[in-house]
């Protein structure tokens, strides 16, 4: 009986492993979000010389769970003039694209269990980087649809701002990531990490690293580039009309995007799971530590810088970031060509 089942399953192990990995990644990612919310609130508190939430549970760790329960039980308000289908679709798109983006990121060496090689990634794609950019820019649809379907001028403005911002910063993101692709000669993120085994690209490609990080902050709609949701001016921007769990899903999308962007910076520029310190060789922990540091930097930036005005945001994106990233890319490709021909 059991042998029959095993025989039947034998050709499908790759599928089962894939499903298990998908579940682990999705659940793991979504359960990291409350911790990240906690981290952000605590760290923001410390940056502002206060304590942050510390009442619910030890060090306030239960606070985000309690918040999640509160949000789950909130009344679900949909105004009459909203486009119901799109209104429900938008948060789903945001969370879906955020999780799918992360699935292409490798976070450790593959290992073998019972003859099957299990890689620590959702999918090891040849076009990993391209896939990530493609899917993460799909997230814009979620935001634009949210603003559009709410039938509220402020939401619409938030959505439009967001789409304009994300489109213009994606160019910089792509061009600076291209520097890494030029240096490593591969779009595969696993190969990119492998090619950094002696030195992380952040050192030779430092300007590209800085520009990528700035564009990444803008891409994830984080302060100081959080114009789409600008709490003070647009009352949460594109998700003004959302309440309860749908509201929480936008938040979840933002935080998952933050994790993905940190993971992407880690993979592209900080050498992924290479520790560079002999003896400290636990790939997943090294990777997690780098991502954690970058997340702290995200929060640090948020608590330091005021929001940029919209026209300056666009000027900064198109007139400063884009040309300089173009120049940097050309310089590095020239260096690469020279080193190949020499």
């Amino acid at each position, binding site marked *: 009986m059991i042998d029959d089942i095993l025989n039947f399953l034998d050709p499908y192990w790759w599928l089962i492993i894939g499903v298990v990995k998908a579940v682990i990644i999705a659940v793991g990612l979504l359960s990291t979000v409350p911790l990240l919310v906690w981290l952000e609130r605590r760290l923001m*508190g410390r*940056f502002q*010389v*206060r*304590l942050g939430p510390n009442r619910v549970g030890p060090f306030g760790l239960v606070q985000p769970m309690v918040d999640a329960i509160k949000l789950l039980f909130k009344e679900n308000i949909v105004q009459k003039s909203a486009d119901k289908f799109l209104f429900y679709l938008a948060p789903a798109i945001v969370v879906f694209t955020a999780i799918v983006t992360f699935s292409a990121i490798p976070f450790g060496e593959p290992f073998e269990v019972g003859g099957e090689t299990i890689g620590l990634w959702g999918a090891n794609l040849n076009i990993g980087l391209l896939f990530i950019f493609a899917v993460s820019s799909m997230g814009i649809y979620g935001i634009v649809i949210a603003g559009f379907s709410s039938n509220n001028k402020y939401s619409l403005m938030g959505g439009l701002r967001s789409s304009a911002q994300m489109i213009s910063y994606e160019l910089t993101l792509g061009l600076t990531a291209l520097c890494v692709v030029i240096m490593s000669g591969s779009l595969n993120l696993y190969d990119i990490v492998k090619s950094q085994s002696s030195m992380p690209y952040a050192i030779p490609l430092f300007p590209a690293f800085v520009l990528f990080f700035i564009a990444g902050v803008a891409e994830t709609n984080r302060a100081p580039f959080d114009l789409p949701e600008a709490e003070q001016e647009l009352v949460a921007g594109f998700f003004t009309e959302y309440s309860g769990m749908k509201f929480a899903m936008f938040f979840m999308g933002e935080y998952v995007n933050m994790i993905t962007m940190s993971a992407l910076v880690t993979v592209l520029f900080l050498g992924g799971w290479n520790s560079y310190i002999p003896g400290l060789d636990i790939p997943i922990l090294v990777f997690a530590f780098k991502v954690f540091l970058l997340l702290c930097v995200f929060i*640090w930036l948020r*608590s*330091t810088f005021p929001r940029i005005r919209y026209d300056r945001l666009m000027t900064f994106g198109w007139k400063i970031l884009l040309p300089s990233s173009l120049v940097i890319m050309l310089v590095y490709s020239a260096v690469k060509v020279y080193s190949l021909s020499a």
Partner: protein
Amino acid sequence: MIQAVIKGAYNLLVGLGVTFKNMLSKPVTFQYPEQKRVMPDRYRGRHFLNRDEDGMERCIGCSLCSVNCPVGCIHVVAAENDPDNPVSKGERYAEVYEINLLRCIYCGYCEEACPVDAVVLREHYELADYDRKKYIATKGDLLVYPEPNQFSVNFLGNTKIVNK
């Protein structure tokens, strides 16, 4: 232009440094219900009525506090002192002294107007309650502060406990 870029980047880094320094400094938070703040001397919290050195009420029922009150939250009814058994040192005393603490704006004008330093605003700031009726502070509520409660107002207007 490059100079401007470098200067701008430097300024951003300075900002980051400031917040980083803040992170390492001690938080200014008071863990409120467990850890109560010591309010400054001149803090204008809840009202109290003073007694003098002999334990008699200072209030002479002149109603100047009531007259001075910008929101009219003080109600004073004066009565003649019984010479054999006086309540205050003056000719009269306050038979009824009520303050509506919900209406009061804690401006401290009553304290300033009082000619005998009878009514004072002290550092008590925990004024929340569930019952509106408890906010009408009568003489019984106002005279309770540490017995015998003797305060003086110095030239700055600071109220202080006078130790014997």
